[in-house]
């Protein structure tokens, strides 16, 4: 299978679907002439023209809202947030319009809409540009929220997202556009609501999504090498719908779990993971589920502070050892 970057896989999904389906259009700031600040949409304006690759002024709420209108009319807009931080300006459309109208119209409309963009911390982008918005968006019924981490998944899940008749918040791993992986040619989909076992193991389950999956895989290596601990790593892939089953099955096997997220601890995905496990696998747990989260502070600029703010290998490994009672708390 050909190796491609996360960026290329994403572009491939969108452009292939645009070839197949005229109703698919792209919208966003500097996605056309400029090619996208992450170059995700580079070259697509030339291929599909300005009516399908729509450069917008800086007006996140406005253009997201127009996309909701287009979607209700049967188009399939894909809206780029230059970074997901700017989606705060479009929150009203994203959470209080797109996912509600089907319900309050009694099922008369569909809103096949994708809102995509880089999510999570970067390198020294500081407080206003450093957010992981999974639980922020994940709490709203009517929305779907996904966070693919591999090039394979980002293509397959983007195709699923575009074809989904519902609004989808598509959280890309902002730091990973250049990472490579195997990406099948042509049309394939990765369905929502099914977590991926990124690595099998029997001793402890590490549960994560987005770029922290890679962190967990590194920790799994380390635990294996240093302590002969076999960690199972689960990539949630989608936050809404949420795959409870895969987690529960794994914990029934390992009896121990660590949930890892870049976002802040309170009301985050890791808390939900913990709540689900203790609810559905209470009797299987040999230790409380541990959570590893970003530091409870706005994103700092200085690189040393920033690195200390993101979850680290050490923290995850320590949490794993804690649930294995290998280290005293």
């Amino acid at each position, binding site marked *: 299978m050909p190796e491609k970057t996360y960026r290329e896989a994403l572009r491939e999904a969108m452009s292939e679907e645009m070839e197949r389906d005229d109703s698919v*259009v792209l919208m966003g700031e500097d996605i056309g002439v400029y090619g996208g600040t992450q170059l995700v949409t580079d070259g697509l304006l030339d291929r599909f023209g*300005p*009516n399908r690759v729509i450069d*917008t*002024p800086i*007006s996140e*709420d*406005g*253009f*997201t*809202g*127009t*996309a*909701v*209108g*287009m*979607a*209700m*009319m*049967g*188009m399939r*807009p894909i809206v780029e947030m230059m970074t997901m931080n700017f989606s705060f300006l479009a929150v*009203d*459309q994203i959470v*209080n*319009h797109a996912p509600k*109208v*089907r*319900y*309050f*119209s*009694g*099922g*008369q*409309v*569909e*809103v096949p809409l994708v809102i995509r963009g880089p999510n999570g911390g970067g390198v020294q982008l500081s407080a206003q540009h450093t957010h992981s918005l999974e639980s922020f968006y994940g709490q709203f*019924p*009517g929305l*779907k929220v996904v966070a693919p981490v591999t090039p394979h998944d980002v293509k397959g899940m983007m195709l699923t997202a575009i074809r*989904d*008749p*519902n609004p989808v918040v598509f959280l890309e791993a902002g730091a990973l556009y250049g990472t490579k992986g195997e990406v099948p040619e042509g049309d394939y989909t990765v369905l929502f*609501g099914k977590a991926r076992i990124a690595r099998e193991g029997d001793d402890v389950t590490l549960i994560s999504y987005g770029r922290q999956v890679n962190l967990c895989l590194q920790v799994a290596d380390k635990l294996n090498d240093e302590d002969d601990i076999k960690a199972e790593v689960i990539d949630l892939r989608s936050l*809404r*719908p*949420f795959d409870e089953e895969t987690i529960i099955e794994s914990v029934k096997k390992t009896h121990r779990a660590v949930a890892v997220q870049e976002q802040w601890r309170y009301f985050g995905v890791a808390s939900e993971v913990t709540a689900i496990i203790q609810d559905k696998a209470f009797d299987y747990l040999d230790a409380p589920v541990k959570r590893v989260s970003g530091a409870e502070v706005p994103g700092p600029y200085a690189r040393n502070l920033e690195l200390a703010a993101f979850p680290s290998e050490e923290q995850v490994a320590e949490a794993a050892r804690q649930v294995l009672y290998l280290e005293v708390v």
Partner: protein
Amino acid sequence: MPAENDRMGNGSVETHEESQEEASVATSDDHLADLYKKMALIRTFEEATQRGFRQGKIGGYLHVYIGQEAVATGFIDAYKEGDKVITAYRDHAFPLLLGSDPKETMAELYGKRTGLAKGKGGSMHLFDIERGFYGGWGIVGGHVPIGVGMGYALRYNETDQICQLYLGDGAVNIGPFHEAANLAGLWGRDGMNATLFIVENNQYGMGTSVARSTAMTDLSAKFNAYGIENEKVDGMDLEAVLECAHRVTEQVRETGKPYAVEAITYRTAPHGAADFFEKYRTKDEVKKWRERDPIGLLEHKLLERGTLDEDRIEEIKDEMKETIDEVTTFAEESEEPPIEELYTDVYAGEDEYMGEEE
């Protein structure tokens, strides 16, 4: 033209297709008399909703269209098959004018399964997609970008249909309006935005007058900032609205460029049905505007011209009362939605509900 009784027999307002046949005679006296009936129906309907609200049979927020009837009636008269209409929460008049069943419209307000949206939306969220009515939205300004996107889609699909996008004077102050108007202006340069903005300036956003909400009170002129042609119309005078509506509608249809009309009107009722204290305006002011009530004004004209006489007017009013009585009875007697409806329409597609039903 079928006899009047036939047309109104099922309690529904004459549908737009019929009125289109006479677009050329849009302001002929017969046609005006028909429109008079529509306005009377709306008024009667609204009065019934106010009663329903006071009786506790209609819940949530209720916003009536009393005083503004000529605006929608005039613009919807220029509606053509395939056009779309979208507005905020002050939305009852629109389905009535577009041919929705008044019974289903009322039933929605009563939260019944027979309602336009199965009772799941209520007064603020009327929808009738088949008839071109795209809601019924509750957040001030929130539907404005949505309407502009619809205006884009209509051109993208290479139609000559347009989107009538209604908003209030209060909505002109909120960011989404500004962003959407800018997008409409931009897209319109290439003929890619068939949006007709209709600003219903009823002088107040809740308790705040236009003069207290912006230092520049010429609302149509605000569209100058986006390169959108605009004008004002006397929203109390149906004939003025009709002239404007047919003309600008055709222009948007032909050019694919947005256009904006500020309709000067007045909400003679309180903002919401629960809103009985009105510290923000004087009785005198309301009285002055009532003298220009759109129904009264038209009635006066039609009487003067001899199109209708006092008897016929009484008759029409009685007919409307009867119709609306039936409508209300229907709404009252309809059943609540079945409890399973709680979990449907959350998602389109297979996975309709993602929670647990415990």
